[in-house]
């Protein structure tokens, strides 16, 4: 079947498909959609490294593979070290890494494998300055092992080890800002992205491809199973997270902050619109919602100031 060029031009994302159907992600999975966009942007000439996370299952239980690209399954804490090693080995063999026609080395890890367990490997990878891209897909808990809290879980969220109720408590700590830790390494490129804005995400991936040195992208990927939300609301939730300034889209490039289009357009919507669609927030009291709303607006003002001063 041939698709005419005129149709291909109208589609706003690359047309080639290197992510195959038949993978074993849950219905409405945000991480699977993120992987599809990454493979669309980088194509076959990519080497992935994936630690223990949902994507281990999505990419294929043995003997299947849903990828059209090579993939290295690794231990939970070593994504950063492995992509650093692959990049160094490719360079020693004389291959061109990164850039327009080079081989892309991509680390794809969840929030547990990045913010908690893999943080030291990530830090080492950023500090050594390898030419690779690290993508953290953020679904705000350890979803693969059964929804345990991670340091990326937001305030007031239900997880299986913060179940709420009279004897237990809901998550009491705010979300860890991994991207600020990453930016503190003074790397050339870091950005946040959302699955609801694929054009923006693919533009950032292409930018990370061109820039020399380590790049980091934090992708907000919804998880209907863990968030106790309807499967068809995955994209809507990821979009609302951006519109309520809970997860603003911005990029950091050589010392300059820039807030991206979807986040700059309007004033943030009230956070309750984002919370009410998800079952994991249903145990929150009014005070809890106020605390979270206050935190979100505080972070948003801080980001706006950063963009103003370092713009």
């Amino acid at each position, binding site marked *: 079947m041939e698709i005419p060029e005129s149709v291909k031009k109208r589609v706003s994302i690359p047309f080639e498909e290197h992510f195959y159907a038949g993978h074993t992600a849950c219905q409405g999975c945000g991480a699977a959609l993120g992987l599809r966009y990454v493979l669309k942007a980088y194509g076959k000439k990519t080497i992935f490294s994936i630690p223990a996370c949902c994507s281990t299952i999505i990419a294929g239980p043995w*003997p299947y593979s849903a990828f059209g690209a090579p993939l290295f399954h690794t231990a939970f804490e070593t994504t950063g070290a492995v992509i650093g090693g692959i990049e160094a080995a490719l360079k020693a063999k004389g291959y061109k890494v990164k850039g327009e026609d080079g081989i892309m080395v991509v680390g794809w890890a969840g929030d547990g494998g990045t913010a908690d367990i893999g943080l030291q490997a990530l830090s080492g990878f950023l500090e050594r300055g390898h030419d690779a891209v690290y993508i953290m897909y953020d679904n705000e808990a350890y979803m693969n092992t059964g929804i345990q809290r991670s340091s990326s879980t937001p305030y007031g969220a239900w997880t299986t080890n913060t179940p709420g109720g009279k004897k237990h408590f809901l998550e009491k700590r705010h979300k860890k800002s991994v991207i600020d830790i990453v930016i503190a390494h003074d790397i050339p490129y870091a950005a946040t992205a959302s699955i609801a804005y694929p054009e923006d995400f693919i533009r950032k991936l292409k930018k990370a491809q061109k820039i020399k040195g380590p790049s980091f992208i934090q992708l907000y990927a919804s998880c209907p199973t863990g968030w106790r939300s309807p*499967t068809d609301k995955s994209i809507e939730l990821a979009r609302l997270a951006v519109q309520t300034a809970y997860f603003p889209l911005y990029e950091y490039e050589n010392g300059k902050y820039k807030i991206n289009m979807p986040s700059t357009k309007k004033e943030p919507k009230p956070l309750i619109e984002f919370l009410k669609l998800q079952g994991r927030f249903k145990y929150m009291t009014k005070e809890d919602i106020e605390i979270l709303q206050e935190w979100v607006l505080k972070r948003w003002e801080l980001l706006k100031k950063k963009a103003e001063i370092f713009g």
Partner: protein
Amino acid sequence: MAESPFKADIERVKKEYSEKMTPGAVVYLPGSSVINKTGSWRVFIPEFNKDKCVRCFLCYTYCPEPAIYLDDESYPVFDYDYCKGCGICANECPTKAIVMVREVK
């Protein structure tokens, strides 16, 4: 009706695929997941109304499978072998040309 873009892959995988253990448990076949038909997971099935479609490609863009591809007139075609029935396409469709109905088997 357009053909599935994975048709060639299914044939290729069926030919080369084997259950034999490989050294180091390495997967040699890229895209071999196409023989795993996930359509049986589905409870709700997307029903498509061609008259309402404005060809914005949002369903194609947001399908996580990908179980939606485009035909030569650029209308979306649903691959019911793989569609898990998540309903993202119906939720994102601006003209409500896609509706989810309970599947009767």
